[in-house]
């Protein structure tokens, strides 16, 4: 009996029990669609992170306080101050540094005429920050160094924050309340794409002096953002910054520094690692549903074999070799599973047209091939027990079965 005949036979058997086959196929369909779609979500988020890296530029470094290890004195000495910013700005000590921006940041409640919204990143900094993170001012203007010096309470809003606070009104020139202080909106940032799980447009940026005075208080800086003169000078800029910090903070033990310097791409790698872990977890859940689908195949094939015991007996009496019967039922299980796999691919392609968890899924062609391969493997694996039961029946027992 040729393979094509075996497949035709299997399809006929599958079609003979439409509802039952349909439900079994559904189990595999859901599993395969879930796996493909979640891999696509992971892939989409990795692509978004990639875009983020490109957008932020690979020429920035972030200096932050190292996580405190025991001694309180160390935390103290590692605190980032405006002093350090000045030291880093010294052209002679750091010739490869283009700009240095102090950053204080935190979530902050902002309101405008009764509309309140918590901006996830209320940032106090200097104008150089916008250039370092590739933010562009779409309307109005950025605040200036003079605004910083004069503690002017002005703010530039990200597109997301502006949309939530103002809806249709024009925000430029309007006053918003941040905490207990009033800030004047002077500019709007352009829309930023490429996101992981947080909206990068939900920001508000103000002069650091005004932000500290009115909002965050005069604590240490959260970060210092350093922009190198060029992407290929980031390494040099890093060692220069390192030297300045070591001197300023009197670091003797290089292995135990009170601060850390990360390049933007390192930060994003860390973030995409988190995304990947999340994807693997979701993928595992999806794989579990595929396993359940596979058990459904075993179940339905057991029923089929039992129902067709008499037929198996007749086939054996006519001289069907064990292997032929094994192939017959394995093919049937595989056809079931492959139909589920194919429909699952279709469902995943349809599903990928929608945005999931704020991410546009991007289907990997290889994940389709893999899913189809896996569904064949599932048919073979989960069909093997019922099929070998059928093939192993003694002809006399099969014929006598009622």
């Amino acid at each position, binding site marked *: *009996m*040729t393979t094509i*005949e075996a497949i035709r036979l299997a399809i*006929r058997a599958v079609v*003979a029990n439409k509802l039952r086959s349909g439900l079994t196929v559904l189990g595999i369909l859901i599993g395969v669609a879930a796996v493909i779609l979640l891999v696509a979500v992971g892939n989409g988020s990795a692509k978004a992170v990639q875009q983020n890296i490109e957008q932020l530029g690979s020429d920035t470094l972030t200096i932050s306080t190292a996580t405190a290890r025991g001694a309180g004195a160390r935390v103290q000495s590692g605190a980032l101050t405006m002093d350090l910013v000045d030291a880093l700005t010294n052209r002679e000590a750091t010739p490869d540094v283009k700009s240095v921006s102090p950053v204080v940041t935190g979530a902050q409640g902002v309101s405008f005429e009764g509309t309140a919204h918590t901006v996830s990143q209320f940032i106090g900094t200097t104008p150089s920050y916008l250039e370092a993170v590739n933010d562009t001012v779409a309307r109005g203007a950025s605040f200036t160094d003079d605004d910083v010096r004069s503690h002017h309470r002005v703010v530039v809003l990200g597109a997301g924050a502006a949309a939530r606070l103002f809806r249709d009104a024009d925000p430029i020139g309007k006053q918003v309340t941040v905490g207990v202080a009033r800030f004047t909106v002077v500019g709007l940032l352009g829309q930023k794409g490429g996101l992981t799980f947080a909206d990068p447009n939900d920001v508000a940026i103000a002069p650091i002096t005004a932000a500290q005075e009115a909002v965050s208080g005069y604590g240490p800086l959260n970060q210092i953002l350093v922009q190198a003169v060029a992407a290929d000078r980031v390494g040099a800029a890093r060692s220069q910054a390192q030297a300045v910090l070591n001197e300023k903070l009197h670091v003797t033990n290089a292995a135990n520094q009170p601060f850390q310097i990360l390049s933007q791409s390192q930060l994003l790698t860390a973030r995409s690692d988190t995304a990947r872990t999340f994807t693997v977890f979701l993928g595992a859940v999806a794989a579990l549903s595929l396993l359940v689908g596979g058990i459904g195949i075993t179940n339905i094939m057991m029923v089929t074999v039992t129902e067709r015991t*008499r*037929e198996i007996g*007749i*086939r*054996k*009496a*006519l*001289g*069907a*070799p*064990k292997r*032929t019967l094994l192939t017959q039922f394995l093919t049937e299980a595989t056809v079931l599973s492959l139909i589920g796999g194919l429909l699952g691919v279709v469902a995943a392609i349809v599903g990928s047209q929608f945005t999931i968890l704020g991410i546009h899924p991007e289907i990997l062609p290889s994940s389709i091939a893999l899913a189809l391969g896996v569904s064949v493997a599932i048919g073979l694996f989960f069909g093997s027990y019922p099929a070998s039961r059928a093939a192993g029946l*003694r*002809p*006399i027992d099969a*014929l006598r079965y009622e």
Partner: protein
Amino acid sequence: MSTLEHPVIEVRDLVKTYGDGETQIKALAGVDLAVHRGEYLAIMGVSGSGKTTLMNILGCLDVQTSGRYLLDGVDVSTFDDRQLARVRNRRIGFVFQMFSLIPRTSVLANVELPLAYAGMKAADRRRRARAALTTVGLGDRADHEPNQLSGGQQQRVAVARALVTAPTLILADEPTGNLDSTSSAEVLEVLDHLNRIGRTVVLITHDHRVAQHAHRLIELVDGRVVTDEPIRRSPAGESYDGRHRPRTGPSSEAVPA
């Protein structure tokens, strides 16, 4: 060849018991039997006398508890599963009492099945299956499914399937047990015809009139052969003899094979 020297079936002191201990049943209690090429044998006996048990062993579907069974001079008890499947496929054609056909599968595909298991090419086996269907007078029903046929027609398809491999031995276990007299006659005519063209036919029945078709009668009582005698032709009218001829049914367009 040795097959010419040996009986098709040679059975010595065949015993088959089911179960063990107190509930043990002796279905066959020492059967001796030899069937030669071209014979037409009827095995009779009341229900429970061991007919089916005997047929299952003769058909290599089951193995005896003790005793010897030589098929074409070969002791099949030494065969493994694969060899037994081959023997059933090449040497034996079965007709069961009922539900002999595979459901939802065309008549032609049913008849082709043993040839497919023998590894014959699709075109060849289609041709031979059609010829076999013509022999039983159902050449025009090839594309029907079993549930579209009457009981008698189904059994004739089963006979066509049994003869399609040109086996040494055709075993029919109460092939007319579930049929009305007209259908029975049609099925028996086909078996008669097969015997006339040289096939060895073993026909199991509990019906005396059916047994009259054979040339030799064996009677089983409690798993033992109590009679073994040639059949005297009974007067016309008492059996179905002669009233129908094979391949002459209304639907037949048969040509001699």
